[in-house]
């Protein structure tokens, strides 16, 4: 034991790592590579076997108007959900961190969407958005607005999805901000109050900059989620009308499991992977910063 001491940590380290490593390789690294390989083959059927087609799938991708639409939707979806849910999360955290009456109840209300399954609540949101008989239209009618076909109008449908997603996400992010806010020393706020800083000034100049690591962590989560959260589409819109609310991952699902075109789905997945890789690089840069900061 003593004699082989120098070798022990290596053996131990790898032994401990092995179970996790096997699964990670099997379900993260291998499929990533397999996706790349798959994307240069054609769709195979029993009659026509799959064949190597080089970059043909990528060429099709460039010509695929649905792909561009879906990608653009995803960008809009990100722009719509990420800043809004973060801003709301901060606002909620500040509220429930302060002296709010019925604070526990309010916190519960904010957090509840996080623990509700997206597919289950999507049906409830369907009721909100349904024209004529839906809640939005019922309320609108009281104020004399004409009925609007929220999910049937390409100009509003994506924003309906955005609103629902923000609703789902903000409370989750709030928890991170709440934890961060509670770790700020209270004297900082007192020092600010003594100097006559308004709550807004204090927030803008002190709290918000100090929450920056949290904000970066949360925004990366939000960015990932903006590519990942498609559950609601299955119930609310199926990506319609005319792909106006479709997102990249939903399109991948459609291509793979509805059109049974695995190679093209792999090609689309490569786009998604590249997008995530770019974010990953961004995150490493940020992590460096965070270490210096603390």
């Amino acid at each position: 034991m003593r004699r082989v001491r120098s070798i022990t940590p290596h053996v131990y380290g790898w032994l401990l790592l092995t179970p996790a490593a096997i699964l990670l390789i099997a379900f993260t690294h291998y499929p990533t590579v397999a996706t790349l390989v798959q994307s240069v083959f054609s769709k195979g059927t029993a009659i026509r076997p799959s064949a190597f087609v080089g970059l043909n799938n990528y060429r099709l991708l460039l010509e695929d108007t649905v792909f561009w639409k879906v990608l653009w939707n995803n960008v809009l979806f990100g722009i719509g959900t990420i800043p809004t849910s973060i801003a709301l999360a901060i606002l909620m955290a500040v509220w429930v961190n302060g002296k709010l009456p019925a604070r526990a109840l309010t916190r519960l209300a904010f957090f509840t969407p996080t623990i509700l399954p997206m597919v289950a609540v999507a049906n409830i949101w369907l009721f909100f958005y349904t024209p004529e008989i839906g809640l939005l239209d019922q309320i609108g009618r009281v104020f004399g607005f004409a009925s609007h076909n929220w999910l049937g109008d390409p100009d509003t449908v994506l924003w309906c999805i955005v609103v629902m997603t923000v609703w789902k996400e903000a409370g989750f992010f709030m928890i991170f901000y709440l934890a961060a806010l509670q770790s700020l020393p209270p004297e900082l706020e007192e020092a600010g109050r003594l100097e006559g800083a308004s709550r807004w000034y204090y927030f803008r100049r002190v709290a918000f900059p100090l929450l920056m690591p949290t904000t970066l962590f949360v925004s990366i989560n939000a960015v990932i989620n903006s590519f990942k959260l498609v559950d609601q589409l299955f119930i609310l819109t199926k990506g319609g009308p005319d792909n106006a609310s479709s997102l990249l991952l939903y399109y991948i699902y459609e291509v793979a499991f509805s059109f049974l075109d695995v190679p093209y789905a792999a090609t689309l997945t490569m786009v998604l992977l590249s997008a995530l890789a770019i974010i990953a690089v961004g995150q490493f840069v940020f992590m460096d910063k965070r270490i210096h900061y603390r």
Partner: protein
Amino acid sequence: MTWSIRTAFVGLAVAGALVLAPFSGAMAVELTMYYPVAVGGPLTKTVDGLVADFQKENPDIKVNAIYAGNYNDARIKALAALKSGQPAQLSVMFSIDIYELIEQDAIVAFDDIVTTDEDRAWLDKFFPSLMENGRTANKTWGIPFQRSTIVMYYNKDAFRDAGLDPNQPPATWDELVTMGQKLTKKQGNNVERWGVMIPSTGYPYWMFGALTMQNDQVLMNGDGNKTNFDAPATVEALSYWLDLGQKHSVMPSGTIEWGTLRQNFLEQKTAMMWHSTGNLTAVKKNAKFDFGVAMLPAKKRRGTPTGGGNFYIFKDSTDEEKQAALKLIKFLTQPERTAEWSIKTGYIGTRPDAYETPALLSYVKEFPPAAVARDQLEFATAELSTYQTGRVRKLLDDAIQAALTGSKSPKDALSGAQSEADRLLRSYR
């Protein structure tokens, strides 16, 4: 500590057993049937009941029914099961999956299994329009079972309210517009009740298939390798659909949600709706007003696509299994069973002689709307189905929605879809 570890182990073992759910048991012939049922409710019970009857008559055949979800799920699951070597001998799948299944070399034609003349005669016992989707290349690949079509539900009270004859629903496109206008009730800017709603999410191509048929135009050829999306009659049909909302204002503009439409009708937010016969039972149960069911109106002729699921037999099974599967399908499509099935589920009886059984005769008498779908079958046609059917269907769906939401003109939308479809189907010609 030790105790809790032991319980954890026992728990794990039990969980493992449940998680891996091993297959077991072997009988003379064992059939695995995939069935597209979403709801585990009455329908599964009906199917289970029919299967049990069959097993009683044929004790040497055991049938495992796997309820796999919607049509899309059922197809994916069945194909995946075949690919990974799990047993599957037959399945009810979307009637329009035929080309995909042929391309995957997954199914056999019934012509190749039937042996007796009686069996061959059996193949011709069904409504011809229901057989259209199951036949290609001069062979029969699918036997109609869980089939539906589109009918028009209308609110008789609303007709009376608008001064119309509740027993004279619109029979032509023009009547649909003029009656629709009378039925549309406005209060200021707000529409209290629309004239008609045709759903344009979920299955827009299906509704559209009705409109084009009424304009005497089919959407594709019988070989599944050519579409007619840009035919003038097709464009005209889409223009009419668009005009119902935009020009005549008898229907809301934008898309209309398939899933919530029934609720809209039940809440009397629309006087008429086009919907699947599958809604009949629910409408009958929940309508608080006098309602009627009518055939869809005509332009040049009446028309509707059929819809729903057919029986297929998988190629990768033994002859014995194929014969057993055939036996099961024949059993389930006997006139009496078909009648029972139709009464219990609201799906169409798939063969004319089923409507002559005492059960269905008395049912139709008691509830005349049940006959409308049958009568309309005379004018029915196949549902859109081609090679690469998922893609082609989505092209049409997108084009319809693009036109209805005003982002493209019907002509542009449809010719775009047509050229894309041509690109996809060229290699199959």
